[in-house]
């Protein structure tokens, strides 16, 4: 293997590793609202706002990159505040539909906005986010979410997820808690958008479609939405899987696109059927399975 092909290999995987970190942040942004039982699919829209905010600031200002990222997170969070108040009155599938609508509104605005170069988007954004920045941001978000476990706020979120009216009679302001998680999720999605814009050189409306938010949700569901570790694992797995499959399709001769769709769908089905708490619960599920098998084979006393 020549030095050049080795460098190519690293460049390929370097970007995959970066996108895995960004994917993990996006899955966590969906996890925040899932943790209080709200299926919100607004985060592709918030991600778009964060990405464009970051790109435009980089083009039109001389702000240092950390401040650009902060703005990428802050602006979507500010937008989420007035949006969340009416939208979070909806429950279940109605919330999902309304938030899908929000994502489409953002995307269509970007498509038609001359200032952001319409459907073509913004290109040649300086690559200011490297792997260290991406993983530092991910570590920060995981740390905050992890440290919150055990606090009264997280108990309140679990109570809202389990039984919202009962939670209200315990003195929990359910609206405020749901709104806080919606805003936090928007901020994390925006941060991921800002990072991606400065990692992939470009932003375009076509990156923030309904399919994108399904990817985020799949990361959270496949990994397991009970702890912050689940979405990280799920997103990293689903981002790196295509790289793996590329090798498989080269060896087997199957079309990589079809293979990827098939394997993704199969994994999602398997996880939903056999691991409702996600891949993160695989060790516990295996232990339980082994125990039950041992019990079945044990002689009856």
């Amino acid at each position, binding site marked *: 293997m020549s030095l050049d092909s080795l460098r190519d290999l690293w460049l390929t995987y370097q970007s995959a590793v970066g996108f895995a970190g960004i994917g993990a942040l996006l899955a966590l942004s969906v996890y925040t609202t899932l943790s209080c039982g709200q299926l919100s699919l607004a985060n592709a829209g918030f991600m778009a706002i964060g990405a464009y905010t970051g790109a435009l600031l980089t083009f039109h200002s001389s702000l240092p990159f950390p401040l650009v990222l902060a703005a990428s997170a802050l602006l979507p969070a500010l937008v989420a505040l007035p949006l969340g108040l009416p939208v979070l009155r909806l429950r279940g599938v109605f919330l999902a539909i309304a938030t899908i609508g929000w994502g489409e509104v953002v995307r269509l605005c970007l498509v038609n906005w001359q200032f952001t170069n319409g459907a073509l988007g913004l290109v040649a954004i300086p690559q200011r986010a490297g792997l260290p920045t991406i993983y530092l941001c991910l570590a920060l978000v995981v740390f905050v979410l992890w440290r919150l476990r055990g606090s*009264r706020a997280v108990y309140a979120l679990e*109570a809202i997820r389990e039984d919202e009216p009962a*939670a209200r*009679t315990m*003195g*929990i302001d359910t609206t405020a808690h749901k709104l806080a998680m919606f805003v936090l999720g928007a901020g994390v999605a925006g941060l991921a958008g800002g990072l991606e814009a400065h990692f992939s050189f470009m932003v375009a409306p076509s990156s923030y479609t309904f399919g994108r938010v399904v990817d985020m949700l799949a990361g959270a569901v496949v990994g397991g939405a009970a702890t912050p570790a689940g979405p990280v694992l799920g997103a990293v797995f689903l981002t790196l899987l295509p790289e793996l499959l590329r090798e498989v399709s080269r060896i087997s001769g199957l079309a990589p696109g079809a293979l990827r769709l098939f394997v993704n769908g199969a994994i999602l089905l398997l996880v939903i059927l056999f691991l409702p708490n996600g891949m993160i619960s695989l060790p516990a599920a295996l232990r339980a399975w082994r125990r039950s098998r041992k019990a079945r084979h044990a002689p009856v006393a």
Partner: protein
Amino acid sequence: MLLSLESVARAFGGVQAVDGVGFQVGPGEVHGLIGPNGAGKTTVLNLVSGLLRPTSGAIRVGGARVDGQPPHRIAALGVTRTFQNIRLFPGLSAADNVLVGEHLVRRAPLWKRLLFLPSAAVEEREARARALTLLEKVGLSGRAEEKAASLSYGEQRRVEIARALGSDPRILLLDEPTAGMNPAEVRSMATLIREVAQRGHSVLLVEHNVPLVMSVCDRITVLNFGKVIADGPPAEVARDPAVIAAYLGGTP
């Protein structure tokens, strides 16, 4: 008076579920609310806890108007409740259910947790210890880590009471706490209710089990078709001809 209702009414469409109900509950008092099925007892609890808004009338807790306020505000004024059809958080352990109930009394701000300040860890330990003490008081000391959904019916009712006591309420609303219980469980529930009152919590008790109500309550309000038909100490209410007629039939 700690809790007072003044000509409170609530209609569902054309049905007048609660019609001009008024009564008062004093500090440390166990107040029974009884009546035949459909008399409007649970509706009264839903009105007091804020899950429903009265069509008219006034509800006061410690002098402050609470009708029309959201449930979490009313809870913050010291009113918590249990539910007739138990509404625990089934996926959480018994102890975690009680920890949710402590929401109003836990105070450590989030930034202290993020910075690993010892005061936040101390607060969390104390909150858990308080939850375990409450579970012990309702007779569930060994069951704290069980999932709520895996507890027996009677145990779930006790966890619900512990959860409602988690915020140290001034008044506890109990909605048929002995429904579906056997006589032994009913007796221990009666003891528990008296203990709760002795610790200074007022209790508003909705119950179908008349002997239980007669034995634990200081005062009883009887509802029929949404109206108060009697109000007084147990012995007096039991002799009231209108009450006897409502329960046994006949012309009042």
